[in-house]
C-alpha cells in the first residue's frame, strides 16, 4: 500500500432516498482504533433533521399502504443487500471497535438475521397482536394494528450496526417510516447502511439516516410535532428524560430500551412481536351485524 495515497471518502446523510451533504457543511473525522483517519462523515444539523422528518412524512402513507407481504419483501431485500456488503461492514466495525474481526462479523451476521426475522413478521404480527372481540351486542368487532407514523430512532454507540438495525426493523415492518440518528462514536455503520437502503427497494423517505451529535439531534427529535414515536437505546439519563418528555409535546410513543452488550444477541427478546407493539396503534372497528 505504501506509496499510494488513499482516496478519503466523505460519507453523506441519507434523506428521502438521496445522499445530501449536511446543509450546515459540517463534517467530522472518523478515526480507526489505531488513531488513523478513515473517513469523514457529515454532521447533520437541525435543518437536516427537519428535512428528514418531512421526507419520512411524505414516505409514510405509501409505505403504510403497501401490502404487508410487500413490506416483508423489501425488508428481506435489505437483508440480501446487507449480506452482500457484509465484508465492508465487518471491515468498518473491526477497524473502529475493539473485539476484532470475529466480533464484527458476529454483529453483521446478527443484524442480517434481524432483518430476515422482521421481514417474516411483516405479514404475521397483525394476526398475533390483533383480534376479534366478542362484544355483548349485535356487532362485528375487531381490533387491528396500524402504523403509528414517523418514528425517530436513536441508535446506541455499542453495536452500532446491530443496534441500529434492531431498532429500525420492527418499526419499519409495521409500516412506519423512520428518521434514525446513528451512533456518533461509530457513525460509519449508519452511513453505509444508507447505501444498503438505497439499493434495496426501500421507497424514498421511508428510511432516513443521520449522523451527527446524537444527543443534540435526539433533543430536536423529541420536540418535533411531526414525529409520532421514538425508539431509542443506549442513551444517557438526560437524553432519556428529554425523549420521554417529548410525549408531553404531542403524545409521542416513546420506548427507550435498557439493552446492552449481549442483550442485543438475545433473539427471544429482540425478535419478538413485542418489539413491534410499541409502534402500532390499535384500531378497533365496530359494525352492526344484521340484515
Amino acid at each position, binding site marked *: 500500500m505504501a506509496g499510494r495515497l488513499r482516496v478519503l471518502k466523505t460519507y453523506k446523510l441519507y434523506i428521502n432516498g438521496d445522499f445530501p451533504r449536511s446543509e450546515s457543511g459540517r463534517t467530522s473525522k472518523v478515526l480507526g482504533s489505531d488513531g488513523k483517519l478513515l473517513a469523514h462523515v457529515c454532521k447533520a444539523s437541525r435543518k437536516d433533521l427537519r428535512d428528514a422528518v418531512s421526507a419520512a412524512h411524505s414516505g409514510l402513507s405509501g409505505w403504510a399502504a403497501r401490502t404487508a407481504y410487500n413490506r416483508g419483501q423489501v425488508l428481506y431485500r435489505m437483508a440480501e443487500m446487507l449480506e452482500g456488503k457484509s465484508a465492508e461492514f465487518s471491515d468498518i466495525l473491526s477497524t473502529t471497535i475493539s473485539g476484532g474481526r470475529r466480533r464484527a462479523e458476529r454483529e453483521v451476521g446478527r443484524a442480517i438475521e434481524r432483518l430476515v426475522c422482521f421481514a417474516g413478521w411483516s405479514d404475521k404480527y397483525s394476526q398475533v397482536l390483533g383480534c376479534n372481540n366478542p362484544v355483548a351486542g*349485535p356487532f362485528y368487532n375487531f381490533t387491528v394494528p396500524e402504523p403509528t407514523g414517523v418514528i425517530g430512532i436513536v441508535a446506541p454507540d455499542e453495536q452500532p450496526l446491530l443496534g441500529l438495525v434492531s431498532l429500525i426493523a420492527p418499526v419499519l415492518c409495521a409500516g412506519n417510516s423512520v428518521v434514525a440518528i446513528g451512533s456518533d462514536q461509530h457513525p460509519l455503520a449508519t452511513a453505509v447502511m444508507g447505501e444498503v437502503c438505497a439499493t434495496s427497494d426501500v421507497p424514498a423517505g421511508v428510511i432516513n439516516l443521520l449522523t451527527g451529535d446524537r444527543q443534540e439531534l435526539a433533543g430536536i427529535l423529541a420536540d418535533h410535532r411531526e414525529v409520532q414515536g421514538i425508539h431509542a437505546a443506549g442513551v444517557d439519563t438526560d437524553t432519556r428524560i428529554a425523549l420521554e418528555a417529548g410525549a408531553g409535546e404531542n403524545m409521542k410513543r416513546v420506548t427507550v430500551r435498557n439493552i446492552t452488550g449481549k442483550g442485543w444477541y438475545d433473539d427471544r427478546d429482540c425478535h419478538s412481536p413485542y418489539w413491534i407493539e410499541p409502534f402500532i396503534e390499535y384500531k378497533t372497528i365496530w359494525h*352492526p*351485524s*344484521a*340484515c
Partner: protein
Amino acid sequence: MRTVTVDRVMIEARAASFTRRSIKEAAKLQGLCMALSMTDLTTLEGKDSRERISALCRKARQPAADMPDLPQVAAVCVYPNHVALACELLAGTGIHIASVATAFPSGQSPLELRLEEVRQVVADGADEVDMVINRGAFLAGDYPTVQGEIEAIKQACGDAHLKVILETGELETFDKIRLASDLAIEAGGDFIKTSTGKIQPAATIPVTLVMLEAIRDHFLATGKRVGMKPAGGISKAKTALHYLVMVKETLGDDWLTPDLFRFGASSLVNDIVRQVRWKRTGNYTANYDVSIG
C-alpha cells in the same frame, strides 16, 4: 322514488328506547283511553258467527259496562261475510266498519276477483278496506305490478279508506319493508298496515318504526299525512303505550288520532279495560271480570 335503506341494529335500538319511556299517572290514563279509541277491534276467524260479531260490536260500542265513560273503539274489522251485520249493529255509532278484502290473508286470487271483493264489501257498507299486497310479485321484484294493483284497488274502494297490509313477516328485511311502505304510500294507500295477523312475526315495534319513518318522509316531502296500523300480537296495554310513545316521538302529536293511527287487535281492549279499572279502583282484575268480545 329513492330507495331508502334501513340499518336494522340501529333502528331496533331506537325502537327499544320507546319501550323504556315511563308513562305514569294522568299520562297513562290518557294514553290508555287514546289507545282504546284507536283500536280496530278485530275478529278474523273461520268460525266467526253472528253471535260473535254481535258480541264484538257490543264491545266496540262499550268496552266495559261499569265504565261507560271509556271511549268506543275506532272500528270493527271483520271478514266480508259479516260486513252487513256489523253495519246494522253499529249504525249511527260513528264506529267505522273495516273489512279485509282481496283474498285475505294470502291475496292469491286473480286481481279481478280481488277487485270484485272490494266493490262488494264497500257496497255492503264497509267504509274501510284492509287489503293485502301481492307478496309474490313484490318478492320477485315486480314492483310495478304491486303498485298497479294497489292503485286499482284504491280506485275500487271509492270513498272507503284503504289500508294496505304489507305482511311484513313475509318480507323479512327492513329494507324490503321500507320499500313496500314507500310503494303503498305512493300508490295511494290511506294507511299502511303491518300484518294480517295470520303470519308470525306480526306487528313489532321496530317494523312499525320503519313504516312510520316512511310516513314521515312522505309527509316531509309532500305535506300529506298517511296513517299507520300495526296489527297482530298487540295484546297488552303497556305495549300499546309503547307504540303511542313511538308515534308521538317519530311523527309528533298530530298523529295521535284515530284518523292517523290504529291498532289492529282483539284482546288488547280487555287488557286496557283491566288497566284502567286497576288505576281507578286499585284492584287487580280477574280474567272473568271482563267480557269476551
